[in-house]
Every structure is written in C-alpha cells, then in structure tokens.
C-alpha cells in the first residue's frame, strides 16, 4: 500500500508509546544502572565500571547455561517446525474435522505455564504418572528427577506438546491462502507430491514459517516457568536455562550487579537474533 507522509500520525501512536516506554524504558534503565554498580543495601551504590560484564562473560556458569539454552532452542526448533508442517499438511481442509482439530490443538496454548509444568510433572512421575509408569513398565529405567538425560527428554517432550500447535496453526493458515488453481496446475504438469510441496506449498508458507521460527526462538529462549515447575533446573543444574539461572541469581542470591549485567547480555543476544530475522522478513515482504 502506498502510504501518505503525515507527521501527525505520531498522535495516534502516543498512547502505545507512553505505555510501552513506561514499562520498558524505566525498568531497563534500572537494570543498566545496577549493571555498573556494586550495592551494599540501603541504596548505597559504588561505581564498578564493566567489572560485572567481564565477570559474567568469563564465568563458566554463564557459558554453561547459555550452552544449554542454545542446545534446547535448537532441538525444539528442529522437532517442532517439521512436525508442525507435517501435521498442517495432513489436517482436513473442510468439514467437521476442521473446528475439532483447531479447538483441540489450541488447547495447550491456553493453559497457564505453571499448570503445564505441574501437569507434566504428575504425568511423568515414574511411580504414579502415566508416562513414567508406562516407560518403566516396558523396561526403560526412567526417572526425570534423578537422571539428566531423562530430565532433558521430558522437558523437550513437554515443549513439543506445548508449542507445536502454534507452528501447526500458522502453517495451516499459510496453506489455506493457496488458491486451488495452483494445485490444478501442478496436477496437469504431473508434479509429484514432493514437487508440489517444494515448489508450491513451501514458498507460500515462507512468510508464516519465518514468523513461526521467530516466535518459537524468542519464546523458547525466554522459557522459565515450565521447566522451573517441572524440574526446578535439576537434577543439579542440568536443565537450568538462562532465565532460570538469572532469576536464581537476581532474586535468590540477590547478586544485583552480576544479575543485571547478565540480563543485558541475555537481552542483547535475543535482540541480535531477532534483528536478523526481522530484516529477513521485511526483505521477503518487499519481494512479494
């Protein structure tokens, strides 16, 4: 759409600007403030320069939780995106199946995150949970509260359960926007199922898929409540992702300086990845 240049449009944006600035800028400045200072309680602060940043960037604890975070995000993207596409492709396109699928598949998205964690906790308990009991009775030695591998398996399975539907809904919406003429043309050309997918469906889904990857990256990178309730970051620290580690440091140990420095580094990483994605998306849009 060709837009008119109109500086008065700023008046329309003011309420949003004020509300978000009020919420984002002030707290963010507090964090920046802490990150350069040492606190002795009672509002006494001393300038520390970049000491906390160096400390965090060089600390093994941060490297470890960052590594776990990237591993987790990478694995869930690798599972959720193809699985989501596959389910969207096989979903019914008309009839009673559509609302049934949509309603049931949206369910996990609307459950409060701590309930998701609690639900999976009782579902996976080795003695009284369905998953744990079944796995143990068919011969696996499964106990997610004690074995790191099992804890990872359960956390990933929980996230797949929780969020794959978002990818499904987005891909489904993308598929629905394809006109039947494209499929007819493909049929006349004798295109194989794979060719139809590769050259018709996938390009049409490019926009929503970029969005799905972006949303899933952001949200999995900030994941806190679900693994916190499910495993509490344990056993040991094996499932302590960035947010869990950060909250432990800020609210548990009250190490404000290092926690603030870690927050900023954390935020910066998310921002960097999202900026790349945003530019990719805008480029796609400009092309189409």
């Amino acid at each position, binding site marked *: 759409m060709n837009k008119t240049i109109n500086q008065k449009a700023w008046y329309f944006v003011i309420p949003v600007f004020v509300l978000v600035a009020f919420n984002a800028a002030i707290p963010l400045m507090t964090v920046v403030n802490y990150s350069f200072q040492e606190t002795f309680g009672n509002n006494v602060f001393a300038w520390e320069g970049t000491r906390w940043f160096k400390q965090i960037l060089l600390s093994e604890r941060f490297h470890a939780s960052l590594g776990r975070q990237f591993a987790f995000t990478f694995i869930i993207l690798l599972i959720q995106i193809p699985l989501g596409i596959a389910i969207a492709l096989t979903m019914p396109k008309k009839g009673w199946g559509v609302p049934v699928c949509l309603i049931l598949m949206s369910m996990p998205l609307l459950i409060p995150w701590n309930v998701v964690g609690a639900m999976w906790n009782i579902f996976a308990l080795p003695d009284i949970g369905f998953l744990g009991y079944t796995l143990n009775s068919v011969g696996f030695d499964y106990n997610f509260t004690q074995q790191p591998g099992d804890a990872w398996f359960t956390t990933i399975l929980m996230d797949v359960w929780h969020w794959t539907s978002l990818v499904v809904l987005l891909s489904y919406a993308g598929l629905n926007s394809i006109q039947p003429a494209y499929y007819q043309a493909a049929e006349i050309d004798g295109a194989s199922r794979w060719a139809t997918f590769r050259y018709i469906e996938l390009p049409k889904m490019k926009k929503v898929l970029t969005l799905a990857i972006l949303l899933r990256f952001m949200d999995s990178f900030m994941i806190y409540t679900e693994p916190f309730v499910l495993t509490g970051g344990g056993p040991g620290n094996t499932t302590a992702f960035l947010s869990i580690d950060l909250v432990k440091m800020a609210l548990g140990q009250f190490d*404000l300086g290092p926690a603030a420095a870690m927050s900023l580094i954390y935020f910066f990483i998310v921002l960097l990845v999202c900026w790349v994605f945003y530019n990719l998306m805008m480029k796609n849009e400009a092309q189409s």
Partner: protein
Amino acid sequence: MKKYKWLVPTLYIIFLMLPIYWLINMSFKTTTEIINTYSLWPQKFTTENYVKIFTDSTWYMGYINSITYTVFNTVISVAAALPAAYAFSRYKFLGDKHLFFWLLTNRMAPPAVFALPFFQFYSSVNLFDTHIAVALSHCLFNIPLAVWILEGFMSAVPKELDETAYVDGYSFGRFFFKIFVPTIAAGIGITMFFCFMFSWVELLLAKTLTATAAKPIAATMTRTASTSGYELGLLAAAGTLTIIPGAIVIYFVKNYIAKGFAMGRV
C-alpha cells in the same frame, strides 16, 4: 497413502490430550489414592477437591484475580493499539520503522530480565499488589503483539474505503468507529484472543507484582504446593479449572483462528 492421512492429526491430538486427561483423572482422586495406587481412572471417584476450591476464598479469589487483570490488560492493549496500528498501516512518519522494531523488541524481552525492576518500580508508585499493576506490566508484551496483528488486518483493508468515506462527508472519528472498526471486527477478535491468551498464561510477572490482594490462581497453586506438602488432588483440580476459561475463549473464536492467522501476521 492418502487413505491413512487422518492418522497424523489423530495421533497428534491423542498425544495432546493424554497429559490433560491425566490431570483431570487426578483431580477426581483423593490425594491418598494418587500417592498409593496407579490407576487409569479414579477408583474412588470424589469431587471433594472441587468443592474445596469453590468454597475456600483463597482459591476462588485466585481465579477472580486472574480473570480481572487479564480482562483489564486485554481492554487496555486493544484500545491503545487500535489508533497506533491505524497510523502504521496508513501513514509514513518520522521514525515509523524504528518505532515498529522497538515495539517488537519488547515482545522479545525476557520477563525474567524485567521481574526485579518491575517489582521496585511498581512498589515505588504504590501500585504493588493491584490488578492494574499486573495489567499494565503485561502491556509490555501484549501491546506490541496487538499492534503487530492489527496492523496486518488494517493493511488488508484498501485505502479507498477511507477516501470514499471522507468524500461522503464522514469525519475521522465517525469513519473510524462506524465504518473502519466493524470492517476489521474479526481482526479485533483475534487480537483480543491473543492478548487474553498471553496475559492468562503468564506467571512470572504476575507473581512478582502481587502478594495477597491480587494474587493470580497460578501463584496460589505454587504457594499451596510448597506450604502444605503436595496436595496433588487439589492441585490437579485447580489446574483443570484453569483450562476452562481458555477453552471457552477458543470455542468463540474457532472460526476466526485460522483466518486470523492468515490475514494478520500472527
């Protein structure tokens, strides 16, 4: 191969329903039964967990608190986002692209980063432990999302609609509320759905900003779990009840979901 296509979504739905079934199953058991026996359905069916929740005010007030701030947040987010999204979809202005990206970055900000400063900030303006504090803090991620979705819907409406209305002598206000808002009603519905959803499921900020008066149900659950040992039956019943508001909302917007996803950007 085509014949077995329905298997994939069916298996997926079964996978989705299993943990939910398990939660509901637990909610109708007594805590002693849960701990001592493994069974696929309740042996001694009981509704006492639900009775406890509906009669104990610390429990049911949790639901009322959660719904209150969620509704506040949805109304504030959509009301503020409507004019902003209109501006982004219709006009070019100084710094528009940067502003749009800056808004999006707030959707990306990890709540864990903001938890402590929020606590201090809302305490200092005397809003700590109020519904409005939680509603305002959730604006951090819901307003950018609302602007994003609404902008997508509004851009799909041709500009000729605006121009024709002005030629017909409509003032901006009358055009906006009488013509434009009804045209994008589906988009507003979808936006409200997402605002409701993200405010309803968020716990970290809601928990940090409340103590007793505005405590969300999710926080009541975690605190009960830690104070009185594991009352699993009660916890399961409370969890089951948190699914219901979401299910009601989905039922109302089911026809819009897929369409909304396609038209808007989310």
